[in-house]
């Protein structure tokens, strides 16, 4: 019951935000909410499933590019080329782009593209029991390789410039503040729905299975489950969420470039979750909002020291609050309990030490 009240309260607050904020700040909030959607997926894959994905930007990008390509084609009008193609010397619309003129196709691809890539990578690596640090390193390499691929195909992808300059989003005029408000509401709704779905997933038997795999993958294997499939599903699900977030990010921010999905961007998606608390969905959402908000504030006030702050955040959270802000309360409780019963074996969080 209390959960529902809190959920309703937050929903009301988010829906009331346009009354308080200037359009500029509302845009920023909308952007943070996109990151929060990604955070939900990371909390599922990393917090529950123990898969430290350092390449979530790739999925964010795939969703974003699927959407961006569609918007670019709408912008250009039928039979016309998107602006960047003309200055990249492309004369005919590449085959890859053609189906994206269809809005339904583009929307489907927003989810299908990232999910497919995640399924493929997941099945390949998880079946071979590549996990833990190895998986983290590989997912990071994926992000690095993906960026290089995007940048290298300038005629197809806009290169480093990425896709920019969108004015229309499914009938919304992105130059108009009222229409942008509608976009904001849409994002709030998507975030709310994503939250509910991930929560259901986390509480289901599947969610328990995922936690079990995180804490003892081999043991689960001897219970007759195929951990590779279970993990791949969670990984693909988180990829799908990232894709949706990327697709919403494009109209909010008005552009998408490879820099938004590279190694550093992917890590930034992760650190919000770490700060908020990877084991708590609400913590992950809150952490993502807080981190990106802090990033905006710091880079406005003390641009030179942002790296120090960001670095210190990583260190402090890992050192003193590995369960994030959401875990701090529990940590304090454990601490008090440990004082009372000095020898109490506090349950520790297991992670795979070896690949």
């Amino acid at each position, binding site marked *: 019951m209390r959960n529902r009240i809190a959920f309703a309260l937050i929903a009301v607050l988010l829906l009331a935000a346009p009354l308080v904020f200037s359009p500029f700040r509302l845009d920023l909030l909308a952007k943070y909410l996109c990151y929060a959607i990604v955070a939900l997926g990371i909390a599922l894959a990393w917090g529950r499933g*123990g898969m*430290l994905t*350092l390449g979530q930007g790739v999925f964010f990008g795939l969703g974003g590019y699927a959407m961006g390509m569609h918007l670019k084609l709408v912008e250009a009008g039928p039979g016309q080329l998107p602006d960047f193609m003309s200055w990249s010397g492309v004369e005919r619309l590449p085959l890859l782009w053609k189906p994206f003129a269809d809005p339904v196709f583009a929307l489907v691809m927003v989810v299908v593209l990232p999910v497919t890539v995640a399924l493929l*990578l997941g099945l*390949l*690596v998880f079946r*071979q*029991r*590549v996990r*833990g*640090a*190895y998986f*983290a*390193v*590989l997912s*990071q*390499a*994926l992000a*690095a*390789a993906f960026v*290089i*691929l995007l*940048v*290298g195909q300038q005629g197809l992808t806009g290169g480093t410039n990425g896709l920019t300059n969108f004015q229309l989003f499914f009938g919304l005029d992105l130059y108009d503040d009222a229409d942008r408000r509608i976009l904001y509401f849409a994002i709030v709704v998507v975030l709310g729905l994503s939250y509910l779905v991930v929560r259901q997933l986390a509480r289901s038997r599947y969610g328990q299975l995922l936690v079990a795999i995180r804490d*003892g*993958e*081999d*043991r689960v294997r001897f219970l007759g489950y195929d951990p590779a499939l279970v993990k791949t599903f969670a990984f693909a699900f988180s990829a799908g969420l990232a894709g949706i977030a990327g697709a919403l990010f494009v109209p909010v921010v008005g552009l998408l470039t490879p820099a938004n999905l590279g*190694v550093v961007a992917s*890590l930034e998606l*992760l*650190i919000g979750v*770490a700060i908020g608390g990877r084991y708590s969905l609400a913590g992950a959402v809150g952490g993502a909002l807080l981190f990106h908000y802090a990033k905006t504030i710091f880079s406005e006030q003390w641009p030179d*020291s942002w*790296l*120090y702050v*960001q*670095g*210190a*955040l*990583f*260190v402090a*959270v*890992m*050192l003193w609050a*590995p369960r994030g802000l959401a875990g701090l309360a529990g940590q304090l409780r454990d601490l008090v309990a440990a004082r009372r019963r000095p020898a109490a074996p506090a349950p520790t*969080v297991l*992670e*795979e*030490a*070896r*690949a």
Partner: protein
Amino acid sequence: MGTLNQLVIGASIGAVLLLASLGLTFTFGQMGVINMAHGEFIMAGAYTAYVLQPLVGEQAVLVALPVAFAVGGVLGLILERLFIRRFYGRPLDTLLLTWGISLILQQVARDVFGAPNVQVTAPGWLTGGIDVGVRIPYNRVFILVLAVGCVAAISLYLSKLRQGRRMRAVMQNRQLAAVSGVATGRVDQATFFIGSGLAGVAGVALTLIGPVGPTLGSGYIVDAFLVVVAGGLGQLRGAVIAAFALGVLNSFVEFWTANGASFAKVVVFAVIIAFLQFRPQGMFVLRSRALT
């Protein structure tokens, strides 16, 4: 002709990769610690050469090698004592922790040495090259020799010295080593000191061929980790083979395809994923009966 050239070039790319990843085979391979700040230790090594330059003059690079080993080693030791020590068994948390530290170190370098690249002059005797169809610059030969020398020194250390044997013992079975009277904490410190020291040495070598700036290390870190992953945990020969294989692969893809440099990176990634399909633990594995 072209093939031979590219083999030679591949070997020299491999030597750079090997040098950059050698320290990681210790810290990542032996201790399971993903040290994202490894790249910044490389950077520290490079800046060591820069700082020594006005004091030593032309031979700064040579003098810098041992000094950078110490600088990197001490940085690694501090990192281990202050932080990593508390993180054993939590490798993924270590990754994020050290990423934070790497950001801080980068900004420190920016504040101390300035954002622009600085210049380290190579000693005169390293400026020439040998002609074998393709010209192999002396500085590449130097890097190759340095890499091979480091590998030789490490394998000697691991097999012949008592300290080194302890290190191997801890790596293979920490608990068993601990109950057999090995001070694992001491060994961890030594491992981190050497691993980070090697990063420092790599940094000095990299001043010969590339830029010296605050982001020097971050350019190598992903590749270096890939080498260790492909080579297998804690496997010196795995890392050596992986580094040279990736180097040669890189040079061939880059040579035979148009716009190859971009393409090569993608191919290398794909090949590693494919490779892990039949060698999921990397090239060489330690057999163990433990569950997970």
